[in-house]
């Protein structure tokens, strides 16, 4: 590792390398120390970050507004249950091995995106937003009513994933005297998936497709004139974004151990949009930061509701923690739009490293605004 880094001549980054290595070390060590609540919160954050990576490609980098992200999360989550379920609970299930079910569920989400892509390729802006809104309503109706498939209102149990002989369930596995349950094991899976998803999204955005997507966002006609097949790109990025959502859905389902239809509503789609706005539109690291911020905030506020000023303990009147976190979101979105148009990602790259990377429209010459 050290040699490749050295060969690529990134001497300036040496402190950063140490930083990343330390961060990675901490992340790997966490399951040995944190209790279930924190690991679960972290897993929710990882799933949210994965989903945010997807919608960031679509809305942030290509400028296609999607309100239907929650629908694709649901396709991933329920798809996994369908493929992995063995049918003993009376619901449809194909009984495939967990890893295959997860892969197929992501593919299914992509397929769902593909089916929608004739529309996604042609519409843009608010029109696409409204068209995708329909997906939410259709999705919710199906989730509540297709009883044999979704389990209806109470959802269905999620079969545990097994990979290389390791089953991600609550059967205890002692690692260095620490009992590893579902969340501890899933933590590493989540980290791996997030890292893979992060690198892939960054690769896409830094390469030709990324430039093409940014060109479409910034000037659709100019992009077409330059020879970019606009409709095809839009459709393709829609499929890719759906697959990210599907993957996030699978991870969420594994953490929840149950899919609940209530969850995949419009509020979730809006949360994902809030994540990428707060994190920074078009930035890969920003999407991750936004996802973590938005999904951790309410959980932290609820947990520390007893200790925070202004926020009152439930049942005593005043602002409940749930409400407080909603106010904070709102405030964060407004503050970001007003004072930090590039989102959290801009904070990290406030100081230009060299004048050449600065340009009036950094997202085009330097597609990933989060370079560091």
């Amino acid at each position: 590792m050290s040699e490749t880094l050295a060969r690529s001549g990134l001497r300036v980054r040496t402190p950063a390398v140490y930083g990343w290595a330390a961060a990675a070390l901490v992340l790997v060590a966490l399951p040995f120390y944190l209790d279930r609540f924190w690991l679960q919160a972290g897993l929710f954050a990882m799933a949210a970050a994965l989903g945010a990576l997807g919608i960031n490609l679509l809305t942030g980098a290509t400028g296609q507004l999607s309100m239907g992200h929650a629908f694709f999360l649901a396709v991933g989550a329920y798809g996994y249950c369908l493929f992995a379920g063995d049918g003993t609970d009376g619901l449809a299930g194909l009984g495939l091995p967990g890893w295959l079910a997860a892969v197929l569920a992501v593919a299914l989400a992509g397929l769902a995106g593909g089916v929608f892509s004739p529309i996604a390729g042609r519409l843009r802006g608010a029109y696409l937003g409204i068209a995708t809104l329909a997906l939410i309503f259709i999705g919710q109706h199906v989730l509540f009513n297709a009883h044999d498939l979704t389990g209806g209102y109470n959802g269905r149990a999620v079969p545990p994933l097994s990979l290389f002989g390791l089953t991600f369930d609550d059967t205890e596995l002692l690692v260095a005297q620490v009992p590893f349950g579902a969340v501890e094991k899933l933590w590493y899976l989540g980290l791996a998936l997030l890292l893979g998803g992060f690198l892939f999204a960054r690769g896409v955005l830094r390469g030709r497709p990324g430039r093409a997507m940014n060109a479409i966002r910034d000037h659709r006609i100019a992009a077409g004139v330059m020879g970019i097949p606009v409709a095809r790109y839009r459709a393709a990025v829609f499929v890719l974004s759906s697959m990210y959502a599907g993957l996030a859905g699978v991870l969420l389902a594994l953490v929840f151990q149950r899919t609940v239809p209530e969850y995949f509503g419009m509020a979730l789609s809006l949360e994902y949009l809030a994540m990428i706005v707060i994190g920074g539109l078009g930035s890969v690291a920003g999407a991750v930061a936004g996802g973590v911020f938005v999904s951790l905030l309410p959980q932290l506020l609820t947990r520390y509701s007893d200790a925070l000023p202004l926020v009152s303990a439930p049942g005593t009147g005043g602002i409940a923690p749930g409400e407080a976190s909603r106010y904070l979101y709102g405030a964060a979105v407004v503050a970001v739009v007003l004072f930090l148009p590039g989102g959290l990602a801009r904070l990290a790259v406030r100081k230009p490293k060299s004048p050449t990377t600065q340009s009036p429209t950094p997202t085009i010459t330097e597609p990933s605004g989060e370079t560091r």
Partner: protein
Amino acid sequence: MTHRRQAVRGLAAALAALVALTAAGCSSKAKTGDGKQTGAGGVQTGEGVTDKTITLGALTDMTGVYATLGKSVTQAQQLYVKQVNAAGGICGRQLALTVRDHGYDPQKALAAYTELEPKVVGYTQFIGSPFVAAVKPQVDTKDKGLVLPQAWSASLLGSPYIRVLGATYDVETINAVDFLLKEKGLKSGDKLGHVYFEGDYGENALKGSKYAAEKAGVTVVEQKIKPTDNDMSAQVSALKQAGVKAVVISAGPRQAASLVGVAAATGLKVPVVGNNSAFAPQLLGTQAGPALEKMYWFASPSLPIGADTPTAKKLVADYQAAYPGDSLDNGIVAGWTAAGVFGEALKKACADKDLTREGVDKALLSLKAHDAGFGMTHDLGDPKAPSSRESVIIQPDKSVPGGMRTVRQPFVAEAAKSYTP
């Protein structure tokens, strides 16, 4: 280049040291014993119990769709805890109720459950049957703490740790239909309308009405609605067209008010009977109020808050003193009953010198005739059955406290006795 190699080596060493540390048991998570110990008074204790306090959890909804219910249930339980503590607590220990508001959000509900799990002996309240279903495998196999959900769906039955207090929706609906048959002139060959929510609650109730109707030779005319449907005009005209002689409604208070109001206005003058969630005293102040008093009844798993029993009267007085200005509804009864059952189980567990979760679970199973003071006795001996099959029929009435008057005392319909979910 060399110093980078050193860095990698350093990292590797750090990682090795870390693993060694946890191996040596420096992580607080490392396994040491089973967490049980013997505390003050020779009582075995486990999670959530110290020598001074017994901590209970309440997972409620104060900002979401069940906000009104959640508030009443929680305040009633806080009142219970306060009174028990004032009287010296249980087992020489004070009770502490940790409340978490999940706003009917699955993610927050699960997070709150997980957060409280290592800190509490059990949960006196858990609103939202999908979330209860979500934690069920974990409760059954690992945590084994008692959970008393504020939901009456038959799908929650069967776990020795998750216990439904009172008649489930299906049983309650059978009782409601029995009321129509015996007292409101519904007879064999008639048609019975059933307006119900999609999902757990409505579908469970529908099972009950279908069962009761089949027994009585009545046909059910189904009308499925969504929780967001507030105007029942279409349903009323459909039911009128079908020529129903009575209507059952398994929905929210708003839908019940709309149904009764529209039915009265359009001349569908038939008795309407709802489940316990299909009424709120606030409705009496609306335009539908007079019609509700005339042609609406609802079934409930306990006597109403304004009932004429010593416990009910004392509860009303204490509640109003503690929370002046808050309205009285049946959520208070439900919350109080659940907290009472939990308290009883704790007392029993204390007598057996075992305040661990297992001890409390065992104590609860031995409560075969618990009287919560609202007209019902609860038999908690069988996890597969609801703790009671009794219902009361209540009529909205502005003139009594809480706006509810009991018209039929606790009863079990013949059909409900033989019914198995």
